[in-house]
């Protein structure tokens, strides 16, 4: 340390102590939102979409004056799809980089690790990952919010629709981790509840590229519907191998979720006639000016239409802003109280609300089907909307069932 640096630092320190005004000016520092997401690995395509949604939200917030008159920054960090890395990044975001809020998370197990850190540091967390546990005991907390759909909702909604429209004899293939297991469980329950049969359930390790060894057995069992819980890049490898075995001609294929970035990468040959659920699809802009405004500004900024996870990130960041404005502070508990006190919101895609007993967001769901090659609308128009399922708290477990009542 040379003499000049020493002098300026001590002078600044002295000034801070001497003048409360300086302290007040410091609160004009930007509000920082930490955003851990799996930028590398099998979920990277979806994480890229989340990153863009977050950036768009922050741009729009700053254009209209930020939060509480302060500029907003989003700090996006790679959690590498590993819980321990997610926990470490979150800790750094809070302790070293001074983030007042954490938004993000994509894989359910990593999001749990993030939540452990935010609870410990008493920082408000809005999760954008699909998970049942995050809004249930013992993982949830008064300052843990959950923006995304969860396996219970998606599997009950899609499962019911599949039972009514595609067939009652199923085979379920699922990635052997939190999200996959929860979906498998709820799908099996839903199937039974509606009088169907599950001929078999096949777990496989997340991140697999080779499914062929599972397929002859499924083919021999002759299910009416093959239900696939194969997220991210696994989805492409899975569908590719299923189709190469000719199984799409023998049975219908449905999944609790479609991911547009993954479908785009896989192409229309692969996704033709594949059914799945979504919280958002960019073609909903037809006939909906609010959605069109969002799609247009996303397209203008990034050159591609928005995906479904980017919307979670966008909405969650705008909810951080709304809560802070309502509470007139960034204090986690006060912001959380404010959001529960006025739980309804609509950031363009339709009415949503926080259920006050578990901080879970409720929103409409859509059933989509892959278009035939040649029938797609540009590079991203691979899917067509088959059905809308309005938001309904009955699709989730009750707060009593979650141990919260």
């Amino acid at each position: 340390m040379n003499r000049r640096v020493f002098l300026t630092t001590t002078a600044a320190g002295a000034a801070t102590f001497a003048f409360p005004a300086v302290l007040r000016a410091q609160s004009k520092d930007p509000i920082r939102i930490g955003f851990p997401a799996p930028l590398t690995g099998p979920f990277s395509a979806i994480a890229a979409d989340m990153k863009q949604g977050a950036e768009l939200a922050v741009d729009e917030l700053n254009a209209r004056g930020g939060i509480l008159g302060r500029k907003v920054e989003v700090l996006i960090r790679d959690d590498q799809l590993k819980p321990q890395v997610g926990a470490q990044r979150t800790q750094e975001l809070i302790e070293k980089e001074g983030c007042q809020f954490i938004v993000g998370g994509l894989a359910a197990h990593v999001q749990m690790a993030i939540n452990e850190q935010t609870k410990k540091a008493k920082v408000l967390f809005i999760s954008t990952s699909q998970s049942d546990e995050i809004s249930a005991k013992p993982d949830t907390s008064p300052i843990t919010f959950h923006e995304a759909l969860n396996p219970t909702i998606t599997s009950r909604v899609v499962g019911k629709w599949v039972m009514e429209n595609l067939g009652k004899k199923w085979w379920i293939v699922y990635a052997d981790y939190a999200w996959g297991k929860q979906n498998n469980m709820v799908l099996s329950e839903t199937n039974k509840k509606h009088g169907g049969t599950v001929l078999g359930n096949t777990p496989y390790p997340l991140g697999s590229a080779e499914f062929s060894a599972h397929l002859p057995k499924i083919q021999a069992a002759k299910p009416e519907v093959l239900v696939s819980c194969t997220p991210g890049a696994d989805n492409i490898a899975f569908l590719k191998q299923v189709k190469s075995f000719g199984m799409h001609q023998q049975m219908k294929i449905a999944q609790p979720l479609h991911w547009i970035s993954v479908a785009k990468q896989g192409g229309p040959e692969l996704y033709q006639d594949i059914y799945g659920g979504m919280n958002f699809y960019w073609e909903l802009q037809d006939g909906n000016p609010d959605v069109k405004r969002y799609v247009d500004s996303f397209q203008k900024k990034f050159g591609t239409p928005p995906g479904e996870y980017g919307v979670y990130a966008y909405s969650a960041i705008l909810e951080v802003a709304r809560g802070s404005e309502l509470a007139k502070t960034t204090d986690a508990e006060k912001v959380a109280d404010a959001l529960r006190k006025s739980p309804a919101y609509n950031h363009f895609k339709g009415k949503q609300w926080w259920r006050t007993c578990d901080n879970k967001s409720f929103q409409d769901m859509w059933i989509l089907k892959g278009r035939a090659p040649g029938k797609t609308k540009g590079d991203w128009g691979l899917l067509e909307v088959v059905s809308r399922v309005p938001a309904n708290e009955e699709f989730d477990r009750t707060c009593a069932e979650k141990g919260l009542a």
Partner: protein
Amino acid sequence: MSDISLAALAAQVFTGLVLGGIYVLLAVGLSLIFGLMTVVNFSHGALYMLGAYFGFVLMGRTGSFLVALVLAPLLVGVFGLVVERFLIRPLYGRSPDDPLLLTFGLSLVLVEVARLIWGKIGVTLDPPAALAGAVNLGFTYFPTYRLFVIAVTAVVLVGLWLFLEKTNIGLVIRAGSRDPLMVRALGFDVGRIWFLVFGIGAGLAGLAGILAGPMRGAYAEMGVTIIIESFVVVVVGGMGSLLGAVISGLLIGQIVGLTTFFAPKLAEIIVFIFMALVLLFRPSGLLGETGLME
């Protein structure tokens, strides 16, 4: 479960044959390189990944899968030659740990480079139209492309065997793996044999990569898990034994296939259980010579 028909089981055997074929192509290269040069080549998985990506690029450029299938392994082989000449050769005569660490580091670099060039997401390769779809084998429908993979693997292995057994260079390679000092005394340039063998091993890894591409897609981390399984294949077969690598690769393909069929949860660890059992009863592997590792 009464549903387990003979037909499904037979289809499973074919599936295992494809898995095994990819293992064999990787393990033969590893084994060749180890047997001759005592180099444990940790970059083999990355070379496999390069094969798939080179295939992707070449298919885009030429529009022909066959051209890509021939050129991609050759390019990976040439890349292997460069690696041997400039990175591994300076390490000969030092502890075997040095080339191991070097190739491990090289694999990390190659994975990052692949991410930089081709993106973090990975790409999909399509099999040529003639090989798309499934054929009726009588008892089940089986993907045409996978039958093609079995055929290519068989042809390449027979070709490799002929090369090693029937040509003069093959003779020198085999002699070199027995006693490099004597071969050198007879006036052969052992360095050139090693150079060639590393190139062949790399080319075989590249071939495995482009063959796997249309089944599994190409992505930067695709070699990371398969390299471990390939080492298991080499160890089970016996370090340095080519025939051992072939038998063990096919065997492990079947074991993985059948375990997936009967007990999917065990499929991931079964190869390691199998390795432990083999080493318990045959410490130097199925066809390994005792004393090679000491």
